[in-house]
């Protein structure tokens, strides 16, 4: 029988590739949205209050002692942020020989274990036989092959990888190792170094060469021992010879004087190029620090520089002697989305090489601009408008204003959000055509600028919902006017239907959701003021699926507001209702057949009769949607956020107490960051 047929070979290749696939790539996936954030947090323990904070970063570099001192906290961080990458910090060329006498000795389990096994012939010594110190309290270790062998015939550059593999990586707590201080040379550490232990001062060139070879050997050994499923990062001046063993490096104290001549353009060039030499996945960390936590300009400059390339993670903390802060900045809260351009110089658009200039990079949700020149730059956008971040820290920059030009100080940068004021950004939630929309987060902070929700082609005050109801990846626009719902796709009217048989011509509350699991969305309607509390459900073609149900007394004529929520997390959406003006503030939840599922709750005082507008959205990004309400009239415009079981989570005023009435609440994730914004609309202005 002929077995080497092309068909059989293909099958064999498929099977083989299946078995070998995990070994071909790391299990770690780096995110493709920005900003990417790293925290260089070198405390040996993690306090409980720091857990939730640290879980917000994408990459954590934690001291290796954390695995012994704060194992539970480490696990909790992973639980809070399953996508987080956590690297164990270790120094490659130094150790605290006197760790037992250190005030932190009780927290230095691994260090003591390491020091216990350091053979005296591994210390880096000078020609007089004294150990060399480069950092207070530590002595340098000899990474060259000139180091002596211990009783196990190991040198330091062989022992350290073994220690890492057996004592750290084997715990399963880490995604990789972070080697601090891997320099391409060592002659800077002293003028009389004797790395080959021949009691003679080593020649500089030979010394540096041996050092680099020894470091490479350590890195290679590390990779061999821990395999390709773990990351290896290094910190120190970028040395090209190491990069193939590393997944990335840290540019500490950006822009550091020791790195690439210390100027921004050269460092950025190195930053850009280094990814070509590193292993994948590629994680490069740009770390800036300043003892002034509020040096926002420096933060922006470092972050924006990081954002010029794909592979960078930004870190900001106190100093090189105190990396251990959980400082969080307004810029960190912004979802820039995915990158849609490479970095380009607004002052010299044809030159892609990093030079001093006004550099810009565009993302789906924002643009980043950095002024690396030595003077203030004025730039006027041509037919572009942006929103500044509406932050709470540096209001001189992040004040939420809409702009069409910027004046950027030297060595400063800014993140500019794309304007939200395009109505097509409101999806899957109904709005009244012409309403002015204010955008809030769950804390009542106006995160984005307001805008007019107005589509010129449809009647003012008609109710509109934009959603892909037929699941073909093209959105339909549903418009209610005079009791007729028209469905448009690509501005072409597909069909129309009368949800209440033409008997009710007023305002409707609209919602869409796949209630029956058929893959397309049903259209849920509630009659507005003047109509009964009649909820009806139609398929995508406007065909009535059930007779509907009365959410409240059928003789009530204040109408009913509708929204949908998956109450019990079973993947099936339930219908949630609020009574219109004249009814009590009773929020009720029904299944698609009109069966009341819970007793509901009163969103406001039970004697209030001004009507309740409601919406549903995941306002805190925890994967669970909340119920959001606002009184339509008579009360202050107090937005309330309820859990599914009717408990108040938050509340805030959407407008001044003197502002009119006719409020509507909606919710949608406008900036695709996984957190729904709360939208409050009013026709009066």
């Amino acid at each position, binding site marked *: 029988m002929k077995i080497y047929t092309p068909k059989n070979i293909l099958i064999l290749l498929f099977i083989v590739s299946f078995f070998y696939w995990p070994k071909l790539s790391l299990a770690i996936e780096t995110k493709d949205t920005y900003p990417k954030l790293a925290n260089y947090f070198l405390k040996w323990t993690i306090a409980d209050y720091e857990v939730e904070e640290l879980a917000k970063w994408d990459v954590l570099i934690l001291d290796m002692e954390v695995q012994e001192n704060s194992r539970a906290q480490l696990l909790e961080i992973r639980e809070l942020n399953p996508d987080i990458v956590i690297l164990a910090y270790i120094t490659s060329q130094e150790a605290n020989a006197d760790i037992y006498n250190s005030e932190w000795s009780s927290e230095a389990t691994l260090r003591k274990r390491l020091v216990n096994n350091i053979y005296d012939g591994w210390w880096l010594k000078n020609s007089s036989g004294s150990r060399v110190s480069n950092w207070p309290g530590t002595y340098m270790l000899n990474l060259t092959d000139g180091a002596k062998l211990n009783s196990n015939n190991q040198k330091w550059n062989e022992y350290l990888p073994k220690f890492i593999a057996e004592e750290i990586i084997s715990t399963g707590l880490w995604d990789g190792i972070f080697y601090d201080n891997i320099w391409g040379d060592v002659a800077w550490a002293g003028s009389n170094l004797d790395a080959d232990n021949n009691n003679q001062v080593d020649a500089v060139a030979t010394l540096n060469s041996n050092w680099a070879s020894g470091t490479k050997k350590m890195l290679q050994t590390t990779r061999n021992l821990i395999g390709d499923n773990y990351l290896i990062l290094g910190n120190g001046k970028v040395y090209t010879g190491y990069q193939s063993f590393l997944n990335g490096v840290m540019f500490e104290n950006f822009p550091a004087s020791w790195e690439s001549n210390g100027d921004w353009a050269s460092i950025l060039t190195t930053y850009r190029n280094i990814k070509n030499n590193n292993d994948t996945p590629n994680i490069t960390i740009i770390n800036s620090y300043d003892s002034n936590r509020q040096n926002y300009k420096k933060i922006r400059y470092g972050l924006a520089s990081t954002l010029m390339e794909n592979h960078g993670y930004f870190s900001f903390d106190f100093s090189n002697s105190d990396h251990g802060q959980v400082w969080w900045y307004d810029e960190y809260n912004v979802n820039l989305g995915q990158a849609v351009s490479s970095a380009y110089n607004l002052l010299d658009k044809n030159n892609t090489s990093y030079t001093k200039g006004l550099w810009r990079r565009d993302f789906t949700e924002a643009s980043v601009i950095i002024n690396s020149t030595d003077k203030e730059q004025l730039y*006027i956008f041509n037919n572009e408008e942006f929103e500044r971040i509406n932050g709470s820290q540096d209001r001189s920059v992040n004040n939420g204003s809409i702009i069409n030009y910027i004046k950027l100080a030297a060595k400063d940068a800014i993140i500019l959000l794309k304007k939200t004021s395009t109505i097509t950004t409101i999806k899957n939630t109904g709005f009244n055509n012409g309403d002015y929309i204010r955008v809030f987060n769950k804390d009542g902070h106006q995160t984005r600028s307001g805008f007019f929700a107005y589509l010129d082609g449809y009647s*003012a005050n008609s109710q509109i919902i934009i959603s892909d109801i037929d699941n073909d990846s093209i959105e339909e626009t549903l418009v209610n006017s005079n009791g007729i719902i028209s469905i448009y796709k690509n501005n072409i009217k597909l069909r129309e239907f009368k949800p209440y048989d033409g008997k009710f011509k007023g305002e409707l509350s609209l919602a869409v959701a796949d209630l029956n699991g058929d893959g397309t969305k049903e259209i849920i309607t509630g009659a507005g003021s003047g109509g009964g509390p009649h909820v009806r459900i139609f398929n995508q073609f406007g065909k009535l699926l059930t007779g509907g149900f009365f959410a409240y007394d059928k003789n009530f004529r204040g109408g009913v507001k509708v929204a949908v929520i998956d109450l019990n997390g079973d993947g099936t959406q339930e219908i949630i209702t609020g009574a219109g003006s004249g009814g009590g503030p009773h929020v009720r939840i029904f299944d698609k057949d009109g069966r009341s599922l819970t007793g509901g709750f009163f969103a406001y005082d039970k004697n209030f009769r001004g009507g309740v507008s409601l919406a549903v959205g995941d306002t805190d990004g925890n994967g669970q949607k909340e119920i959001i309400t606002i009184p339509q009239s008579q009360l202050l415009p107090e937005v309330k956020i309820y859990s599914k079981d009717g408990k108040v989570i938050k509340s805030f005023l959407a407008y001044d107490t003197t502002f009119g009435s006719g409020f509507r609440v909606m919710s949608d994730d406008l900036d695709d960051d996984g957190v729904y914004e709360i939208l409050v609309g009013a026709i009066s202005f």
Partner: protein
Amino acid sequence: MKKNKNNSKPLINNDDLEIIPPNNSSVIIEDENTNNDTVCIDRDKVKVKKNGNLVVGNVNLILNPLKKRNDKYYRNNIWHLIADIFFVLLIVVFVIFIIFANKKFTKDNVSLNINIDNKELSSGSKVSFTLDYQANIDTTNSFIKVALPDDFIIESVSPYNYFNTSTNSFDLGDLKKNSKGQIKINGSVWGELHDRQMISFNYTCDQCGQTGISNYLFYDISQPVLETKLLTEDIIYTNSEFKGILKITNNSDTLIKKATIDLGPDIELKESDLEIKDNALIIEEMASGVSQEINLLAILKTDNNSLEIIPEINANISGDIYSFLGSSTTLNIEKPNLAVDLSSDQKNVNLNEKISYTLNYKNEEMVPAKDIKITLSSGNSNFSLNPIKITSDSKNIQIDDNIITINDLAAEESGSIVLETSFDQRKIKANQSLLLKANVEYRLDGQTISYNVNSNQNKLISRVSATAKAYYYSPQGDQLGVGPLPPAVDMATSYWVFLEFNNSGNDLKNFVLTAELPDNVYFPNEKRVLDGKIIYGEIGKRLAWEIPSILGGNNNYQANFKISLIPDEGDLGTIPDLLKNIKFTVTDAFTGQELSGQIENINTNLKNDKLSSGQGRVTIIN
């Protein structure tokens, strides 16, 4: 074609032939060349069965056989004729006997007796009909079918389980001899006053002959559903206001909803205890047996000496609309002895505008009129009258608190004064007219006479206004505009313009607001048009906001849009206009008057924007 035996006379056979009537125009073609006794047949239109004969002419099935018997028998012997006649008569008598005998026989088989519980019926009253029946023989397949009068509304029947609602019949089945029973029908009767109505019961069974046995009951509608009676003063003066009381009684046993009572075009209703709509009184609902007295204030609109008023009533009864007439009332009309006439030359007026009225008076009696007092007030309750001034010679006339006192007038004495006043609006309603109402009171021969006179009507012109405001920040502090503030040379600063049009009053049409954008102001086509539409022409830099029709009342209309200013060096230090030559026109559909207005230019100082007002002077940013 079949041939007859003697070939001289065609056989008439419906199986073979179509019989064509002689005047069938569809197949007959007139032929002027032929004799009048003959016709020509269109062969294309005549369809004859295959193998059939065609007969043309008159066919007489009775005379032809008699003619044949006459030729054969009667001509020869008259006794044949007598015998034939006798024989035919014998057959006829026999047939009649059979029919009558059968009728008499079946009628005795069943007894039917109808009763009614109320002989004095008003339209809408509830009534019960009972039918007592007795089978005098065994009957099978017995049914009683009920024929109800028109508009009778069945409420219940018994025995209900025997009753078929679709055929209005009771299925009694097989009844033994001497079986008795009763059928009862409850419902309400409806009809015009004096209508005679009938209910009938028809008993059918296998033994009841072809038509069955029937019994009937007649009754009369003696009272209308709603009884109306209009009570007024004995004498009403021509074209004057009068008071009256309309007494309405619901004679029916039913709740009446949404009834309208129209007293006719010669009575203009002004005020009433009930709502007045389209000059008719509206009764929301009236329970059975209830009487209501409605106070009226109306104007008589006829010059006749008398007026017969027959109210026309429409009412919703059990979901159906019924129309009927109320009781007649005749008004006696007289012309006032003291003739007073109020008129204004103005046609359309603005609110609060001074209106001049001429009041003419003349004593047309032959005796003096004394104690003459004319009390003036607004004839439209949505307005109040401001103090009146007499602007002409007012000798022998005094005015105080809008009451004019005229000294005694001799017979045939007359006079005239000119008054000036204005009105305040109490309630904003569309399409209103102003009129002055005068209550004239005087004494004549010791009798006090009082009547009302109204002036001609002045249509009130709608109050309209428009505003144009520009904002960088909304009144609530939201940023609407974008760009440097104050504006800077060669840099774009955008603002939002809010146009608003207010109408208080009448229906309007063809509203157009136009404006011009200065040279360095641009229209980016971002807008929010809540009413009407906005058109912009870049060539002339002209903008138009149009609303084809505007409903009356008190409403405002809005359109907002963005404009963008890019100042040039020549603008440095100036406060440029953003919108200029802002004008509007609109036609008042009620008065026909064209209304217009002009709004001052909007500039970058944004006087309405409390957050950025005053930051309009163009600067330069380096």
